[in-house]
């Protein structure tokens, strides 16, 4: 029974993105359970190189879980996830290979509080990519300039504001030269006046051609930047469309309800 729907959904998606030769991330019939709780139900999603996707939906809809499956912070129980040609299995080598190429930005920044900003940025290039420290620090400074806080390089994360910390976190992920960037509600933990500085950096990143998957409620960001908006509810992808259509002509009732709730104010 499930097999049938999986194949059907799979063909639908692949026709939607005109072949999967340039697919950066491909999820085929992915299911996940937490104990008895079915969190992800038959997720089929293909992200092309350079594509920017915004994922939205009510809390508990599985959107964070979905993108966390892409770098295996969460394990899926059935279906296939292929990132840049590497399928995620239990093989640790492959998981680490995928993680090297996938950058992630978290809701709560998760900077390393015992290291300075510069050390946070240079750590993974030095220890994972074996870049010489000097070179790694030079490139880290470049990324700090890109997120507009080079003057904070010698400070510790605890001495920065939330917005600055999140920009450091973005720079830290970029230092690994990732092919895909995942953002898990990057502005949800920020004070209102700091949201813009983080979104500005993300918009700039999008214009540079980075492949991005962003879980967010910032609909303004979705409208200006996204190629596609995905709406999830109760573990399923309910609807996906380009942002213009998505916001003006939502097809499903649940999407309409969700949009009316978040766009009301």
């Amino acid at each position: 029974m499930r097999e049938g729907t999986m194949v059907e959904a799979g063909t639908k998606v692949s026709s939607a993105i005109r072949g999967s030769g340039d697919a950066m991330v491909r999820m085929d019939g992915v299911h996940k359970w937490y104990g008895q709780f079915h969190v992800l139900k038959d997720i089929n999603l293909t992200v092309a190189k350079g594509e920017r996707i915004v994922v939205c939906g009510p809390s508990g809809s599985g959107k964070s879980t979905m993108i966390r499956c892409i770098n295996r912070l969460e394990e899926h129980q059935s279906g296939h996830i292929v990132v840049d040609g590497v399928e995620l299995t239990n093989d640790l080598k492959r998981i680490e290979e995928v993680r090297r190429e996938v950058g992630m930005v978290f809701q709560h920044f998760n900077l390393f509080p015992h290291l300075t900003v510069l050390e946070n940025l240079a750590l993974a290039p030095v220890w994972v990519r074996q870049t010489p420290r000097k070179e790694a620090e030079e490139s880290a400074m470049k990324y700090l300039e890109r997120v507009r806080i080079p003057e904070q390089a010698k400070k510790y994360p605890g001495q920065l504001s939330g917005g600055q910390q999140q920009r450091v976190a973005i720079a830290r992920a970029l230092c690994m030269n990732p092919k895909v960037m995942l953002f898990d509600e990057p502005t949800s933990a920020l004070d209102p006046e700091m949201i813009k500085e983080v979104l500005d950096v993300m918009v700039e990143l999008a214009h540079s051609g980075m492949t991005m998957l962003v879980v967010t409620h910032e609909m303004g960001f979705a409208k200006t930047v996204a190629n596609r908006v995905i709406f999830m509810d109760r573990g399923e992808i309910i609807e996906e469309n380009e942002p213009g259509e998505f916001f003006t002509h939502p097809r499903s009732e649940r999407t309409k309800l969700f949009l009316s709730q978040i766009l009301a104010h």
Partner: protein
Amino acid sequence: MNDRAQTYLPGTHPDLPPPPSMVGVYGWLRANLFSSPVNVILTLLAAYIIYLAFPPLIQWVFINADWQGDTREACRREGACWVFVKVWLRQFMYGRYPSTEIWRINTAYAILALGMIPMFIPRVRGKAWIAAFLLFGYPVVAYYLFYGSAFGQVVVETPLWGGLFLTLVIASVGIVGSLPIGIVLALGRRSRLPIIQSVSIAFIEIWRGVPLITVLFMASVMFPLFMPEGLTIDRLARALVGVMLFSAAYMAEVVRGGLQAIPKGQYEAAQALGLNYGKMMALIILPQALKLVIPGIVNTFIGLFKDTTLVLIIGLMDFLGTIQSAGTNPQWLGFAIEGYVFSALVFWVFCFGMSRYSQHLERKLRTTH
């Protein structure tokens, strides 16, 4: 003009100094000693107790004490007889270590001191190399100095080791050995692999559930029964291993406490960057976890340092042991109190030193405001 009446436009209010009752000696006294009627009474009571207890103590320790001389006849006054400590000092420090070879112990102390000094000076570079020498090179150097035979010195067998020297040997081996073993056990206990986890739990719970005296007795009396005929292991070495594993079990639980305090996000961020388990632990998780539990680690170290006195019961003459045996010497009967006061002072100096160092370390490693 009266300052209070002064009004300012919004945004122009200057920073004013705090009122006098909050600063200076007066402010301190008010805040700490006389802040409420109950505190006033307690302060006065404490002052009275100090007045009662201190003068006699000072009299005994300093004013009426005997300092000069080399025999018990020199102690005629009613105060403390520090001559006792003076005469036996070499025993207290080195036990029965041959007097002609004591320079070897002192040399080892000197090397240690020379190695430690740069660690306290912030400007010195290459601390990692010095630390590596102290951890891995120094024990080898110290072993050959203490035991001998590498460069043709006389071998000094371990039964001759004693006094504060022996206490320091046991304590430092215990301290240096128990931390890494404890870390491994703590990681093992949190492992998701059932075999590693159960072995770690069993190890920790067995060692933690047994008194140190029992461990020492088993190491000293029972262990040789299980050894094959003709093979003997030095008694001190057995005690060292016993003390080390015993404290490692405690250390493991302290470290585990620190590991549990590290938020899940730190693991996830490290994994998301592609760090493998070893690098994640060594670079991200352990530095933070260990920093959190510095007070607990030092607490265990201090406990271990004082517990070394228990080796007396398996016949090792540590610092306290030599003092006790000097007190029972027929020539010097009746001066045990001086000995115990002296040992208390020495133990206190070492433990207080460790405590201060840990506070210094906590301040140095603090990375938030």
